[in-house]
């Protein structure tokens, strides 16, 4: 297999090569470390290379395999982790200049669980400073600078799990960990053309992750396929008595057959695919909708109520909780070292959110949950574009108007345009699947949102979609290879 074939191989293929002795874990780790250094630095995707740790873990993985020890699916597989996750002895900067010297002496639970599964932590990956909790304006709102999109380095990789999206898309690691408070896995997955999973709130431990919003934060995988996300989720999900949000559940992927999936009721709002999508994205979104329709499932037009201010709720709940987490920091001189002025202003403003306003927001939040309860009595899954358009140019403000929806034009038809904040408010799982390209060659994604703890259904549907399409197998031309349809 050529270098680029190795770079873009999925977990199952890498495991097959490790099992047959064609490749050692040390060789694979060295390969990833080299690409992270050479390609990752060009993309501003890397916060820190962890060569010593990775090679030590790789040597132990090779020894265990040679000794005939039981080896799970991630044994010897390298990965990167968003730099908001603590890794013992390594810098954990949270993407923010004031925390550039921060080092923890323990591993986040998810990193410890992946180590137990034999996976190799090769790098901490770049992120938007403080996961963007104050509302940032620039792609450059990161200690590493603007994360460049492997499909077009003049475009942004998305945020706040920027490096995780870019590193998987560029073939630097087979999978990465990201986190989502509201959109930080789904958006970079869509922009970078990779598969991302936002787990149900409470399924994956957040111990060792930077807290931004205790009632919204989730940790999840970004990978080459839904099946690879499932393998990672199996390893990282599970009870954690140190995490008050832990639901006490584990996850095991049991793919549902097409005959089961055909019985699903899939909800969608036509306006999301037609009026509210960027013009250059509409053909790909229409094709994705037709692919899903061809499954034979019952397609149901349905939308969230338009009188619930999900975006406002997310702002106030994140703001109030982040103000509690970071209050002393926000009031310190070091706060001035943050990169993004809009984010600083947003965090300062959040200090003024009253207990009354926070509690009112939490009361209204329950109405969002109730709205989903009603929707999920009618359908099993919600489908929408993950983002209405492609990755934004890195040198343009992120709040610049770009499409009809951003320009304030409201669709007269019902839509699920607020599905990311609303889905996060309700703690629901979501998967982002690459679904094609704009007319200018930028990747696009669709998202599937399900009931709490229905990751198995979403990933089964995602795996089916990825058997019917090859969008998830395409490779960025940046790496010297035209888009491929192999496999």
């Amino acid at each position, binding site marked *: 297999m050529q270098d680029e074939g190795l770079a873009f191989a999925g977990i199952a293929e890498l495991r097959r090569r490790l099992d047959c002795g064609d490749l050692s874990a040390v060789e694979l780790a060295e390969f990833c470390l080299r690409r*992270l*250094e050479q390609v990752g*630095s060009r993309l*501003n995707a*890397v*916060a*820190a*290379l*962890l060569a010593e740790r990775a090679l030590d873990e790789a040597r132990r993985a090779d020894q265990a395999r040679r000794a005939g020890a039981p080896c799970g699916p991630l044994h010897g597989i390298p990965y990167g982790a968003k730099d908001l996750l603590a890794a013992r002895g*390594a*810098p954990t*900067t949270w993407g923010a*200049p004031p925390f*550039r*010297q921060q*080092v923890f002496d323990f591993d986040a639970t998810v990193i410890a669980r992946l180590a137990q599964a034999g996976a190799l932590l090769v790098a901490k990956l770049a992120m938007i400073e403080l996961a963007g909790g*104050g*509302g940032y*304006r*620039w792609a*450059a709102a990161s*200690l590493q*600078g603007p994360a460049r999109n492997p499909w077009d380095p003049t475009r942004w990789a998305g945020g706040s799990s920027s490096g995780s999206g870019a590193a998987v898309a560029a073939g630097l690691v087979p999978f990465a960990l990201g986190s989502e408070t509201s959109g930080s896995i789904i958006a970079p997955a869509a922009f970078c053309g990779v598969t991302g999973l936002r787990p*149900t*709130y*409470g399924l994956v431990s957040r111990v060792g992750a930077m807290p931004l919003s205790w*009632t919204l934060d989730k940790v999840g995988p970004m990978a080459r396929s839904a099946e690879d996300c499932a393998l990672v989720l199996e390893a990282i999900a599970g009870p954690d008595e140190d995490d008050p949000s832990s639901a006490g559940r584990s996850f095991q992927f049991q793919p549902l057959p097409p005959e089961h999936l055909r019985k699903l009721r899939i909800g969608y709002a036509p306006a999301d695919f037609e009026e509210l999508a960027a013009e250059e994205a509409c053909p790909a979104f229409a094709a994705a909708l037709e692919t899903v329709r061809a499954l034979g499932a019952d397609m149901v037009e349905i939308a969230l109520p338009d009188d619930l*201010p999900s*975006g*406002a*709720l997310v*702002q*106030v709940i994140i*703001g109030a909780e982040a103000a509690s987490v970071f209050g002393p920091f926000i009031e310190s001189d070091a706060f*001035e*070292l*943050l*990169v*993004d*002025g*809009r984010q*600083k*202003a*947003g965090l*300062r*403003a959040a200090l*003024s*959110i009253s207990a009354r*306003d926070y509690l009112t*927001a*939490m009361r*209204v939040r*329950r*109405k969002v*949950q109730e709205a989903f309860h009603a929707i999920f009595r009618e359908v099993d899954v919600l489908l929408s574009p993950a983002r209405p358009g492609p990755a934004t140019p890195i*040198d*343009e*403000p992120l709040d610049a108007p770009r499409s009809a929806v951003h320009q304030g034009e409201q669709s007269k038809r019902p839509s699920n345009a607020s599905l990311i904040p609303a889905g996060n408010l309700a*703690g*629901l799982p979501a998967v982002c699947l690459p679904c094609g390209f704009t007319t200018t060659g930028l990747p696009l994604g669709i998202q599937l949102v399900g009931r709490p703890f229905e990751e198995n259904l979403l990933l089964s549907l995602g795996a089916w979609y990825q058997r019917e399409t090859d969008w998830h197998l395409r490779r960025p031309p940046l790496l010297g290879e035209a888009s491929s349809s192999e496999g």
Partner: protein
Amino acid sequence: MREPEQHLPEQHGNEAAALARGGVPPREQQAGAGADVFEEDPMALAQAAQERLAGSLAAIRAVPLTIRDEPSLVFRP
């Protein structure tokens, strides 16, 4: 406010690469080097942030609530 490309902090990327190679934090940042790279007016940003927050709070307060609408303080999906 200047155009962002005049201030795109490539130095952050280079420092990240240095950090990456060594796996340890790089040199101490020069005072203020990371602050507000786009030189936006902090007063205007602060006012805009307060206005955005006020708008969000108004939208939330406008949702009718009854005495039965209790928050989930231990959040469960």
